[in-house]
């Protein structure tokens, strides 16, 4: 990138910029505040160069599929050509994305295709031919629900739309469980449920935005049921939130795009770090994965305690790198489109309390839980008992909301395993959510927080080790795959502790 490089070196830091890798790093990190770089990024040549570099690095990051890179490229191109119509562009792209990729998870798509293939009336039809009308029907129903909600704000549904959403999902799931498998009705209903569950919390944010008297046209809202940047079923909050961060001037847009480039490069560095560490752990050192270590313990071949701890911390590091790279890529795409939203993960290892880590680790997931579980409970229950009020609301978010979120996102499991089978599959995750909730309650209510005057060790070192240790151990239980149960995971943990 010679032009951007020249722009960087034309800055007040130019002298420093030729002073070595550290100075280059400083110039790179500061480029979204560097007048020369900003001026260049705002030119047509700068925009072309930035977009080209961004898309190349995004493709190299391996965080999204080639088809997604293509859709992202077209959307970013349209956003760059018609910045005044950015929201409309993103909305149209969102509808296209929902039509092409109606399901959030590969397992969900495979499940839906199996149900279609086993229904004699549908086997002759292409999967897309069955799914596309259902997606359009889903979008139409959501549009109708949003219009009704806007009109009847003071009714129960108007005040509690998410309760309405859960009730609707409950009815659909009950119907799905009652229907005869291997029929067209069964296949169509479960396809619809999978589409609905993938967009569940995106729709919840659309309702929440309307409650805030945001008068965005319903048609535009429908383009944000599954925005074009993809990712799992965690929304980056709603349209109102996105608008807050929209670049309003060419200078702001240039800075936002430079931030996007910085973030996607950081994502690639995390991917590279992950690849190197994984090779070191799995190939050079021949360490087992956490699941392999769990299986070995369950089969009566436990690892020595020290090796077990090594596997747990290795798993924590690899998880942090994987999660960080993926979410940075998502945020970078949104920034490149012109919305300078905060990162999803921001220096989680600097957290000194469990609540702070939770806030820094997956900011937008925490926001979903806070917006739809914490605040409603906080607004209504135990108003005269502040500490109990916070404890109850935290439990509703970190435990109840957390488990419900995972169940909704994988609602198709009910068809495959039944109600009891699904709950058994989630037993370890439920345990994780309960422990996490209690730990967060204690963390929030603890009056004594670490302070600088406590000294370096007690302020900077011990609290961080405690937080990292807690979340590293919790990873043993944060499992939604059903690989081994709670008993086996507890056995492994007890073996680690020498018990």
């Amino acid at each position: 990138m010679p032009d951007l490089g020249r722009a960087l070196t034309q800055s007040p830091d130019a002298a420093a910029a030729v002073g070595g890798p550290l100075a280059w790093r400083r110039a790179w990190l500061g480029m979204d505040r560097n007048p020369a770089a900003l001026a260049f990024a705002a030119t047509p040549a700068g925009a072309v160069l930035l977009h080209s570099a961004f898309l190349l690095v995004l493709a190299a990051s391996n965080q999204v599929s080639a088809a997604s890179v293509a859709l992202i490229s077209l959307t970013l191109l349209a956003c760059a050509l018609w910045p005044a119509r950015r929201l409309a562009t993103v909305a149209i792209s969102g509808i296209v994305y929902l039509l092409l990729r109606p399901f959030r998870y590969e397992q969900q798509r495979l499940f839906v295709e199996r149900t279609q293939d086993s229904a004699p009336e549908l086997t002759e039809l292409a999967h897309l031919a069955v799914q596309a009308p259902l997606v359009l029907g889903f979008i139409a129903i959501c549009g109708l629900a949003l219009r009704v909600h806007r009109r009847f704000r003071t009714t129960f549904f108007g005040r509690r739309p998410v309760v309405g959403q859960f009730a609707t999902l409950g009815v659909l799931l009950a119907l799905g469980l009652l229907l005869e498998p291997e029929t067209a009705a069964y296949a169509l209903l479960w396809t619809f449920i999978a589409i609905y569950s993938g967009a569940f919390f995106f729709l919840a944010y659309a309702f929440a935005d309307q409650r805030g008297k945001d008068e965005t046209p319903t048609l535009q809202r429908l383009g944000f049921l599954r925005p074009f940047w993809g990712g799992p079923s965690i929304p980056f909050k709603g349209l109102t939130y996105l608008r807050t961060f929209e670049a309003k001037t060419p200078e702001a847009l240039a800075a936002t795009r430079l931030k996007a480039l910085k973030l996607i490069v950081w994502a690639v560095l995390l991917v590279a770090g992950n690849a190197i560490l994984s090779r070191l752990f799995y190939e050079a050192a021949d360490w087992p994965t956490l699941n392999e270590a769990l299986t070995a313990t369950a089969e009566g071949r436990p690892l020595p305690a020290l090796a077990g701890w090594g596997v747990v911390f290795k798993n924590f590091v690899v998880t942090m790198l994987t999660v960080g790279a993926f979410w940075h890529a998502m945020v970078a795409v949104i920034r490149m489109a012109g919305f300078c939203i905060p990162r999803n993960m921001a220096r989680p290892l600097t957290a000194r309390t469990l609540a702070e880590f939770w806030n820094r680790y997956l900011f937008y997931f925490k926001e979903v839980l806070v917006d739809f579980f914490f605040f409603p409970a906080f607004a209504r229950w135990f108003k005269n008992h502040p500490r109990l009020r916070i404890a109850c609301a935290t439990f509703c978010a970190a435990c109840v909301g957390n488990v419900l979120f995972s169940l909704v996102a994988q609602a198709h499991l009910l068809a495959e395993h039944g109600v009891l089978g699904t709950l058994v599959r989630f037993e370890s995750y439920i345990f994780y959510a309960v422990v996490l909730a209690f730990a967060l309650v204690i963390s929030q209510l603890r009056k004594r927080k670490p302070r600088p005057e406590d000294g370096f060790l007690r302020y900077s070192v011990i609290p961080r080790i405690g937080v990292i240790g807690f979340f590293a151990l919790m990873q043993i239980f944060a499992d939604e795959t059903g690989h081994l149960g709670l008993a086996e995971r507890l056995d492994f943990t007890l073996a680690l502790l020498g018990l």
Partner: protein
Amino acid sequence: MGKDIRSLILGMLAERGHAGPVGDHDSLFFSGKLDSLAATEVMMALERDFGIDLADADFDVTQLDTLAQIEALAAPRA
């Protein structure tokens, strides 16, 4: 009273290491400057000092993101 809620928020920002100036329209919670625990403190202050009912159908938590919005919410009751 408006000054009290402002002082509370500026105090919370300072506690979390944001010592610089904060504009009336700068995002506080959406931007991550303040976390959800800080939001609960603000909401409890609004309830306690300004008689605002958080369970009210018209209460919208997304309208609590800036100093200007919070003071506007508190103003009619101050």
